[in-house]
């Protein structure tokens, strides 16, 4: 049975061999993908599972990136404290912003998330003393890998790695943990209730569910994980810049989620993989990446509204001839 194979685990194990097997460039791309996969998966909890279309998810990514960046560079905290702080601060902001957002429906919800994201962007853009303003904050230090390096060099079979490789492994482990946590959340009774709210918020209300509280909880959780992704990304990017929180970033991650397939758990991660690989390929031929991306998006919206995961599921359904219900639960 295809569904019995622990695909996620296999992919994770394979990902560990990227630095050993590929060049420095491949490690770089893989690291980019890993972080964006978490960012997109966190958005999917809102858009795909709860049915809340946020147009300002980049705000929490940006907040996380700035939190970790400032703590590492200006305060000098170790990574082990600065990384979780990204999730905490982003989660707190999501709690405050979300408190207002979940009171609104549909288009107004999207507009208010956009407004809050633009507020975050404006603060990052102008508050020179803390955020570095328009110039951003370059030279975020890598975490220190002295101890790990000593252990690794003591075991000759492991080979030798650069700091960026160690950072890649760190990201891989942390993102895997985060995605596992999100997977558990989605599969929990709480996660099921989010899906119920997406399908019919009114009925959820009838059976005694406090819809707003559930939505707020989903908003905060999504914010926490977006913040953690941002924290990792700031270090990976060797700098934090205001456009992390700009509204175009929010639409980028929405496109990723849609490309992969909203509502399927691993869809957004696949979207991140495909989109980043495609980007790397295409920018070597042409500078007009947005044109290509826009065209992909149009094709997607008209031909494959379920995204890549949706298309694959449909293909599998045709091959295996299962009933649709079985396919959905088996995926």
């Amino acid at each position, binding site marked *: 049975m295809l569904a019995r194979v622990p695909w996620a685990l296999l992919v994770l194990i394979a990902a560990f061999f990227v630095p050993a097997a590929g060049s420095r460039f491949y490690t770089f791309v893989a690291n980019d993908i890993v972080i964006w996969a978490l960012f997109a998966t966190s958005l999917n909890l809102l858009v795909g599972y709860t049915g809340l279309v946020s147009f300002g998810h980049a705000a929490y990514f940006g907040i996380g990136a700035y939190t970790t960046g400032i703590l590492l560079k200006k305060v000098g905290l170790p990574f082990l404290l600065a990384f979780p702080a990204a999730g905490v601060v982003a989660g707190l902001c999501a709690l405050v912003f979300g408190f207002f957002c979940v009171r*609104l429906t549909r288009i*107004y919800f999207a*507009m208010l998330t956009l407004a809050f994201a633009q507020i975050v962007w404006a603060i990052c853009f*102008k508050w020179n003393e803390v955020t570095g303003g328009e110039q951003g904050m370059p030279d975020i230090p890598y975490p220190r890998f002295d101890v790990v390096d000593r252990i690794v060099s003591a075991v000759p079979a492991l080979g030798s790695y650069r700091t960026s490789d160690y950072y890649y492994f760190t990201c891989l482990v942390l993102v895997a943990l985060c995605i596992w946590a999100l997977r558990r959340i989605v599969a929990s009774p709480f996660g099921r209730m989010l899906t119920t709210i997406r399908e019919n918020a009114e009925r959820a209300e009838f059976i005694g569910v406090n819809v707003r509280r559930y939505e707020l909880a989903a908003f905060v959780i999504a914010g926490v994980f977006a913040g953690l992704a941002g924290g990792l990304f700031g270090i990976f990017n060797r700098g934090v810049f205001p456009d992390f929180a700009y509204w175009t970033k929010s639409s980028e991650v929405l496109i990723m989620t849609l490309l992969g397939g909203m509502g399927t758990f691993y869809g957004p991660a696949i979207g991140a993989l495909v989109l980043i690989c495609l980007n790397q390929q295409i920018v070597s031929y042409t500078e007009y990446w947005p044109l290509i991306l*826009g065209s992909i998006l149009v094709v997607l919206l008209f031909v494959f509204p379920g995204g890549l995961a949706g298309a694959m599921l449909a293909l599998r359904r045709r091959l295996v001839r299962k009933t649709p219900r079985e396919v959905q639960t088996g995926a």
Partner: protein
Amino acid sequence: MPDLAFVFAQSLSGLTAAMFLFLIASGLSLIFGVLRVLNFAHGTFYMLGAYSAFQIVQWIGLDGGRFWLAALGAALLIAALGGIVERVLFRHLYGKEELYQLLFTYALVLILSDVAKIIWGTQQKSVSRPPELSGAFHVFGATVPHYNLFILLLGPAIALAFWFVLQRTRAGRFIRAAALDRETLGALGVNVDGLYTWVFVLASFLGGLGGALIAPMRATTPGMDTEVIVEAFVVVVIGGLGSFWGTFLGALIYGQVLSFGILFFPRFSIFAVFALMAAVLIIRPWGLLGRPLR
């Protein structure tokens, strides 16, 4: 306390900015009012309007009223583009989820802004002011270019014309009816499909005109589309999505907040604008003059 001339100049510049924003935001608000879609591509239509005006001026020159010809031509071009986009692509998304419609308009932003880059490059383009309006008045020690004054008069004129069309003509009645209940309107025998196309054409015309008229005041650059669309969102949200006078009021407020924000706390004027948007959404999501959606 800053002197009076400065305050006067600031409020005038705020008003001028408001008139442009009104031109752009009214199209956005019209599309939202009738089609219930937020059109991200509206800012791109505005940018293309500016580029088209630049291009037409390059061909025919500025003198003897030709600038106005260029501006009108650019606006008509963008109107046609809007109509085509609606007819060929956008109409197939009407029944689908809101998110798909939003993302489609965003795809248009990506595609059209790159097309503009291919045609006009990344260098900024500027158009001179039309010679008949190149002078300036001096009022209260402030310098007001004739062109700005013209814009100040044109804004309300277009607002009135727009209001007249919406309130007093048959087409306007249909548009208002479609905003309230498109199915009933269709059942009454009105060609709702055609009406939607015309709404798109009209909205794109306003966006393109805004772009064409701003070309002599600000340099046309890539990236002006994503900037202006957020500003236009702020305006329509403050005034009320789909509300016509609300958009006018929203534009006035936005212009003043921005220009006086720069005066009193220069670094946080953008912040103030978005904070205002968030505050309006929290307190009155349907905007100052809008009506709650059913």
